């Protein structure tokens, strides 16, 4: 698992990561947790605490809605679904990320000789 800095960097994008997973279909807490591990090839594990705080925040801002599943065996799962406004935010965040990624690359790795006159 990565360093503290890379963990913090990724954690700053928790909301977008969740929106990405939910835009591929409804899912519940542990399902999303597992999907994050899968998507990162086992290199990143999001703590539950971060995940549930993000759910509450996203639900409050109207990006996702929740509903209870009807599993009868040993408790119900709480599923989340992305809303229309959540989808819009996801698309925008993706654009912002592409933009920031390019800039960060230049700022962190670039030297003045890379700047074209």
């Amino acid at each position, binding site marked *: 698992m990565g360093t503290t800095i890379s963990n913090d960097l990724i954690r700053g994008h928790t909301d977008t990561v969740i929106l990405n997973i939910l835009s591929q279909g409804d899912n519940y807490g542990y399902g999303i947790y597992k999907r994050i591990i899968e998507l990162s090839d086992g290199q990143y594990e999001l703590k539950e605490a971060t995940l*549930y705080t993000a759910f509450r925040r996203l639900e409050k801002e109207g990006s996702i809605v929740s509903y209870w599943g009807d599993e009868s065996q040993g408790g119900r799962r709480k599923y989340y679904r992305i809303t229309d406004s959540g989808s819009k935010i996801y698309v925008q965040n993706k654009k912002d990320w592409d933009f920031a990624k390019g800039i960060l690359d230049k700022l962190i790795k670039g030297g003045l000789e890379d700047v074209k006159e």
Partner: protein
Amino acid sequence: MSKNESLIEKKVKAYIDNLFSGVGESQQLFDLKEELAINMKEKAQDYKARGMNDEQAFKEAAISMGDLSGLVDDMRRLGQDTARLAINTTMTARISTAGIIAGVLLVLFGVFTVAMLYYMGVDAVGTTGTGIFIVAGGAIITYSVLTRETRRKYAMNRIRAAFYGLAAGILLFSIFTAVITRFATGEMFIAIGSLMVFFLVGIGLLLFLLLTGTDRRKKG
């Protein structure tokens, strides 16, 4: 469900109960605990499937939960709000109860005085005049019943309930004035005329309230 699974279940439940111990009850807390419990249980079962024993599986699941103190604080705030809400609710409930009792007593008082005056041989106008207590009682009962929270319905907004009370009062008053006018003038057409004025106002108000109302039914 096997014995082993229920051991994990018990441990998970104890862990989560302990985590949120002393936090005021709220619907959100109840939901969050259920959500955390099922997810933690599934995680522990996955660890077990990979060859851990119950004890290890539960411990691993607990460790990977991370620091939940932010969520606990969130829930504590909500719990306090709920406690405040509960106090408000009992206050409103008490006012509502007092209103229903006072309203019923007023109506009964009106009915009894009308009956009493009738048998005393007081003239018809005087007799029906005391019917005004029934009008007032009816309005108070309407308001009090609507502001009461029941198991299936939330209490109505107090201003809205007051308008309903007013509508009920106007409707009863229109009947009251009609009867009085009928006995005072001896003419039915004047009675209907005076009935009409207040009755239309009351019905208009009532229709407006009925058509603009929000759903007060409790969900689930």
